């Protein structure tokens, strides 16, 4: 029941008085328990050595930033790993002479875990100082272990570093090999491609274009020539035809005319002799009619009958004939050429496409090659750096790590000592009941303060009085008080006795 700070305070004091027995007994028990615990706690001694760590070595700036793992060391992790490892502990136990060879028995295991538990590593001074501490009941052992652990740690750290650089070097080396192989492959591919390109005659794009242009020109010229030749031929042909017809026609007409004249002579002769109805005269008349018809026909040019006409004997004809033959030949030649040129052009076009394609391919191959080459060169450089760093680490020069303060022989016990336990017991024994009583006061619902009654219940409180007591009651109270006091004194004396025992025991 809470009301106000003042009532709380007064109530708390009243509660302290009310629960004085509880407080006294709790105090005595706590103080005694702590003292007894302190009595059985062994004095322990801590010894430690400090190691100055500096990731940056004097060599590091000389080799540049080639070493990828020069500064990346997380010291607390490394130290933990090294010092808590079984290997280190085994070495330590060998050095301390606890075991001869290996950890075999269960006792060895227990010893190992105890050593491990009592060894602590602290990283101090901005991560620049490593403190290796060991605690033991024997100060000499503490010092020995701390100093041995420091040695082992330094050795192991170098080993660790060497292994790390070795690993790094190996990795880079393997990478170099891999890239070398890749580079060779790329080179090979490029070579093959170039050869192939030469084989196919695929020249450059511009060359192809000029060739196509030239061919096109030839083609155009040829076509023009062809047209010309055809025209010429046609003209010759026509001339030849005309010439022949004329010649033939003239020949025939003269023949027909001659025949007609002959017929007409005969007729005239016959007429002289014979009547008009004479069969011969009729016959000749018919013949004359026929010839005349033929002449007519010849004049119209309908008859192409060359039979029996000697054209070859005509020189013009011969000449025309020759020219015509020549033109025919030329036409044929030109046509062939045109077809040929077209084919070539088509071929060139295809070649041009091929050239485009191969250019892209080539660019890719070159790029691939270049990239590989660059990486390879870079890796080569790195490998050299790694090799140097490996060499350095192999010679234990890669790390600037040295013992700053060697392990010492501790004089005063460390950790909680008997006196701490006694003091702690007295303080805790006082505070615990007070705290518990205060806690109880918070949860206690019983009515204890007049202020509360007045305010919450509206009751007029006449007063707060202790129990009405008589002499015998007072005597009983006095006896109880004396008992309580003697309990406290007894506790104190017991603590003193235990303390004396311990001092004598040591």
């Amino acid at each position, binding site marked *: *029941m809470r009301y106000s700070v003042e009532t709380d305070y*007064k109530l708390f*004091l*009243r*509660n*302290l*008085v*009310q629960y004085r027995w509880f407080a006294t007994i709790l105090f005595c028990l706590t103080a005694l328990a702590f003292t007894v615990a302190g009595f059985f706690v062994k004095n322990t001694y801590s010894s430690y050595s400090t190691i100055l760590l500096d990731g940056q070595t004097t060599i590091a700036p000389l080799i540049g930033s080639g070493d990828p793992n020069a500064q990346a060391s997380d010291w607390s992790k490394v130290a933990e790993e090294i010092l808590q490892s079984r290997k280190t502990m085994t070495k330590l136990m060998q050095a301390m002479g606890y075991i001869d060879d290996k950890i075999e028995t269960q006792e060895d295991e227990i010893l190992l875990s105890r050593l491990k538990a009592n060894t602590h590593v602290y990283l101090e001074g901005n991560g620049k100082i490593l403190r290796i501490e060991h605690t033991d009941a024997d100060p000499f052992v503490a010092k020995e272990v701390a100093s041995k652990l420091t040695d082992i740690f330094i050795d192991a750290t170098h080993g660790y570093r060497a292994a790390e650089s070795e690993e790094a070097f190996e990795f880079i080396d393997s990478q170099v090999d891999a890239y070398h192989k890749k580079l060779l492959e790329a080179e090979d591919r490029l070579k093959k491609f170039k050869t192939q390109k030469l084989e196919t005659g695929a020249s450059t794009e511009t060359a192809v274009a000029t060739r196509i242009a030239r061919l096109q020109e030839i083609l155009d010229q040829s076509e023009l020539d062809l047209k010309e030749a055809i025209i010429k031929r046609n003209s010759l042909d026509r001339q030849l035809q005309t010439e022949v017809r004329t010649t033939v026609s003239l020949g025939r007409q003269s023949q027909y005319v001659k025949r007609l004249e002959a017929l007409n002579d005969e007729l005239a002769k016959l007429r002289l002799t014979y009547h008009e109805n004479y069969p011969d005269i009729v016959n000749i008349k018919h013949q004359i009619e026929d010839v005349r018809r033929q002449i007519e026909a010849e004049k119209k040019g309908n008859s192409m009958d060359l039979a029996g006409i000697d054209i070859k004997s005509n020189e013009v004809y011969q000449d025309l004939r020759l020219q015509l033959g020549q033109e025919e030949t030329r036409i044929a030649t030109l046509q062939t050429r045109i077809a040929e040129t077209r084919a070539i052009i088509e071929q060139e076009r295809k070649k041009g496409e091929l050239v485009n394609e191969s250019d892209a391919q080539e660019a890719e191959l070159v790029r691939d090659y270049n990239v590989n080459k660059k990486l390879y060169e870079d890796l080569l450089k790195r490998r050299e750096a790694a090799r140097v760093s490996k060499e350095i680490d192999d010679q234990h020069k890669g790390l600037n790590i040295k013992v700053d303060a060697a392990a010492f022989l501790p004089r005063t016990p460390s950790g909680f000592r008997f006196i701490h336990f006694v003091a702690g017991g007295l303080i805790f024994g006082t505070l615990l009941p007070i705290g518990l009583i205060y806690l109880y006061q918070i949860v*206690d*619902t*019983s*009515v*204890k303060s*007049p202020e*509360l*009654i007045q305010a*919450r*219940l509206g*009751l*007029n*409180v*006449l*007063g*707060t*009085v*202790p*129990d*009405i*007591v*008589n*002499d*015998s009651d*007072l005597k009983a*109270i006095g006896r109880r008080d004396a008992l309580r006091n003697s309990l406290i004194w007894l506790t104190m004396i017991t603590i003193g006795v235990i303390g004396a025992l311990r001092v004598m025991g040591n």
Partner: protein
Amino acid sequence: MSDSFGRALKKVGGSALEPTGYQDSRHDNTIMQRRFEYEDGIIVRSVEAREQIARMAQPFVFTRDQLAEQHIITMDDANAEAQLLLKDLRNRITLTRPGLGATILVTSIGRSMQSAYFARNLAAVMAGDENRTSLLIETHTTDGRLFGEIEHPAGLSDFIGKEDIQVSTLIHPTGIPRMRVIPFGSHEFMDYEYLRSTQMRILVKDVTRRYPRERFIVMDAPPVDQVADVELLNEYADYIVLYLPYGKESEAKIKRSLGKLDQDKLVGTVLGGAPRAKGFLSKLMK
């Protein structure tokens, strides 16, 4: 009245009452005169009562040890705080109704012998005034033996249980001057039903009428939260005092118990049994 007034005047010495010192006052002295008369009346009544009271039988007087045994507070013992409180309470009660007696019911929440001690001491304190007498009625069993050496004195339970006993035989003198007691007696009851019996009513009426003036009756009642019939005693009482044991009862329980008591008659509560601090702590607590 005038008779007794005269006698009383003689007893206290008339000359002392002469208002000579105020004769030449510039004020109208009638008020003053009346005031003196009123005071005279009180004194006369007191003297009269004292005479009567002086005639009360006082067969024995407790020694200091006997008083302590009965838990009656004496001067300079360890109960100064309680005594102060009791006197304070007495003054509060007597000054509200001067010249008249009263019935005070002392009850508690939760069984506690301290409640009985408190009632007992209240009666004793009341009787401390030479003009007043007190009567303690124990309505439940206590360890008190205020009546002295008498074996099996007739008490309240005998009166209720047997009916043929005179009220006057119940009232026993105590070793404390001017204090009388009606002990609980030796009759045993199965329950607290006796509080509502007619005999109880007769008894209370009888004792309250016997000495209406200057007599204070303290009824020591059982815990109100445990005995339901305590509330019947409400009607007999003029004042109620509630004894509250320190740190034993919850607020809810107190509220419930308060409902049974007549709020108008409730003088107040006493928070008793507080831790008795000594020395440094007691200074801190102030």
